[in-house]
């Protein structure tokens, strides 16, 4: 019965998602239509001279004409030639240099200051200088593109190599990989997400730079030159037409070319967790369902912590759409936290638990990390942090770990709104949001007790947060209700799972 219910609910949610998507598409189309209509109305109203504000049919006609007689294609071809040539140069220089910087300390020490001093200079500032040195024409545009694209490539390759998980390096070393195998099989795939990102950014910068360079270093062909030239003759329709071509080419490259490169490499190698994106989409899950799910997860899986947070996201993921609902699909496993914490990286700017909390969660991996580090293993930062975790591990022994793990579970329970730990208010925790939200969520088990014990007080204080008695009562009631639900839910799970 429960299976039937769950499939039905899955079907309704997917149907809802589909209808929501349809509404979005409809609204998006409507917006574009309205904007186009407003533009058209303004253009036809005659408030502005038609040379400055041509009507859309006129722009389309101009575009069509230019495409037909081949001039637009030729301009686009010249621009593409400059961009791709410059980009290829930048990759040919930036990629090896960046990898070298990541692997060799001396190269890094030499190149990094230069790169960080040159990077803030906009590429366009060099245009006049380059024009003086190399004359008008292709050379300037290509060099400007090269300059613009070099730094994103260089810095991303460098940080990609630095961010390669030292555990992988060590594991490969222990399995007898030589330098070459290590480089091709571990470092390059490991750094590939960064490198692809670098390539993308490099292209974006190059695309911006080439338009500017073509405007300033007026050669006879190129999309930037067309636009600038059209200004002289007040040909706003030509300008808008080439603007559209520029936008389309940029979009095609960004989405299709780099998107497919990414799919062919990093995603196939499993370097990017597609599941990570699942959390960001808005979900409408009631608090009740969330609490129930959290309780169910806690009762069945003992070694989880972050999983609690994700309990609410048990739904088919749009990207990895296999229809199965997996608890914990949205957030990385604690082991991944350790990996990332050791690499000194963060995922997309979101704070992750780092250092002790993450390390303590997986003592096994830390003990593995005790083996002597090989030569040139790169990540000083990771090693330092790992050292700290290892010291903790040794100093306080297993007992401490166990306690911390208990604490960790408790803390997760607190975060998921299932429990309250008195330490929590005192302990500085990088993941903890400021203000009332988490403290509000901190009432689960204890909400009932606090509710009874301290109801005399007008306001309950925890840490810095003040919680009104009415809210406290509500939380306690909710908690009681869902605890019973969870028990039954767990029973269902047990009955379903024995395969």
């Amino acid at each position, binding site marked *: 019965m429960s299976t039937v219910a769950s499939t039905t609910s899955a079907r309704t949610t997917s149907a809802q998602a589909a209808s929501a998507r349809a509404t*979005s598409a409809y609204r*998006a189309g409507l*917006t*574009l239509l309205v904007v186009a209509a407003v533009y058209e109305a303004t253009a036809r109203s005659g408030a502005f001279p038609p040379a*400055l504000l041509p009507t859309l049919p006129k722009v389309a006609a101009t575009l069509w004409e230019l495409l037909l007689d081949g001039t637009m294609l030729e301009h686009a071809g010249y621009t593409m030639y400059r961009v791709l040539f410059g980009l290829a140069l930048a990759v040919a220089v930036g990629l090896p240099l960046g990898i070298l910087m990541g692997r060799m300390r001396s190269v890094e*020490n*030499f*190149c990094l*200051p230069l790169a*960080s*001093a040159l990077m*803030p*200079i*906009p590429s*366009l*500032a060099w245009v*006049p200088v380059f024009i*003086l040195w190399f004359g008008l024409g292709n050379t300037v545009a290509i060099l400007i593109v090269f300059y613009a694209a070099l730094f994103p490539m260089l810095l991303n390759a*460098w*940080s990609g190599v630095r961010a390669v998980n030292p555990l992988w390096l060590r594991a490969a070393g222990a399995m007898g990989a030589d330098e070459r195998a290590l480089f091709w099989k571990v470092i390059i795939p490991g750094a590939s997400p960064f490198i692809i990102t670098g390539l993308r*950014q490099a292209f974006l910068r190059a695309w911006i730079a080439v338009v500017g360079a073509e*405007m*300033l270093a007026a050669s006879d062909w190129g999309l930037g030159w067309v*636009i*600038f030239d*059209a*200004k002289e003759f007040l040909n*706003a329709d030509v300008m808008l037409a080439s*603007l559209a071509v*520029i*936008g389309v080419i*940029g*979009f095609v490259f960004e989405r299709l070319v780099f998107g497919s490169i990414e799919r062919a490499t990093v995603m196939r190698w499993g370097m990017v967790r597609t599941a990570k994106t699942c*959390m960001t989409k808005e*979900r409408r*899950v009631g*608090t009740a369902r*969330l609490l129930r799910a959290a309780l169910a997860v806690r009762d069945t899986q003992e070694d989880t912590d972050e999983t609690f*947070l994700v309990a609410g996201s048990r739904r088919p993921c749009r990207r990895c759409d296999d229809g199965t609902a997996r608890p914990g699909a949205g957030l990385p496993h604690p082991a991944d936290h350790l990996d990332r914490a050791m690499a*000194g990286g*963060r995922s997309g*700017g*979101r*704070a992750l638990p*780092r250092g002790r909390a993450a390390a303590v969660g997986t003592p096994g991996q830390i003990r593995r990390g005790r083996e002597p580090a090989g030569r040139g293993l790169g990540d*000083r*930062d990771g090693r*330092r942090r790992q050292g700290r975790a290892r010291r903790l591990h040794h100093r306080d022994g297993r007992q401490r770990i166990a306690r911390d793990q208990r604490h960790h579970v408790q803390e997760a329970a607190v975060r998921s709104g299932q429990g309250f730990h008195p330490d929590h208010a005192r302990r*500085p925790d990088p*993941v*903890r*949001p*400021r*203000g*009332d*939200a*988490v403290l*509000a*969520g901190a009432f689960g088990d204890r909400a009932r007790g606090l509710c009874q014990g301290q109801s005399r007080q007008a306001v309950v204080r925890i840490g810095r947060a003040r919680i009104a008695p009415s809210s406290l009562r509500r*939380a306690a009631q909710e908690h009681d209700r869902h605890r019973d639900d969870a028990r039954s839910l767990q029973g269902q799970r047990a009955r379903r799972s024995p395969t």
Partner: protein
Amino acid sequence: MADLAPTASRHVLAASTSAAAGESRWRVVARTAFPFLVVALLWEFTAYLGIFPRKLFPPLEDVAATFVRLTASGILPHHVLDTLIRLAAGFALAAVAGVAIGLAMGRSRRAEDIFLPLVSIGAPIPGLAYTPLFLLWFGLGNKTAVLLVGFVSAFPIIFNTWTGVKAVKEIWVRSAQAMGADSRRLFHHVILPGALPYVLTGLRLGLAQAWRILVGVEMLAAVPWGLGWMIFGAREFLNTDVMLAGVAVIGVIGLALEKLVFQRLEQFTVVRWGMMT
């Protein structure tokens, strides 16, 4: 989303400097200065070799002398001041509009559906490509420069703010709601601090974008004062030394914007609130 990656590289950068903190200060200074010395020596060598005319490839002391001369006569500060005012005006425009639109997009489904197509059409077109159009519509001069800078640098701000609001953990929102937070307090205490790291990243990217575009725009929009114009104007008289001095100043300002303004801001907000380590 690709815009988010600089955060990572920046952090590795910060980590590398903090790792070097163990060494003595002088060693660090010497290590950083060494590559510049090498490049400067190479430059001087090439300049004095006489392969290129001195007018086109001036030795560094010429550039330095020009810099001092321009600074003393007050010309360079005037250029810098005008450029900075333009930057501030354009960026303020972009920040206000971008954050407002981004927040609206993140919070309301309707606003997202309305703005997203517009933003995703406008964003991939390089900012400078709009310049001639803006010049036609708004004429030469300051207004065009400021508007264009604002327009172009709003895109990364919008995107990042939107992502940031979307990335606020559902559980924070829900627990705050369960505790009876009204939408104003929800916004103020949960959404805003939660989205702030992304918003700051967006502002940082927007400022960098604004700076890059501004230099180009000043060359094209024929403003009377401004660093970009100074460089572009110097080309007519083959004043390579003026151009190089201008490029150096542009680089220093860019570096200062990044290092002083935004790192401070981040220290005072997100790091202090524990949203970011």
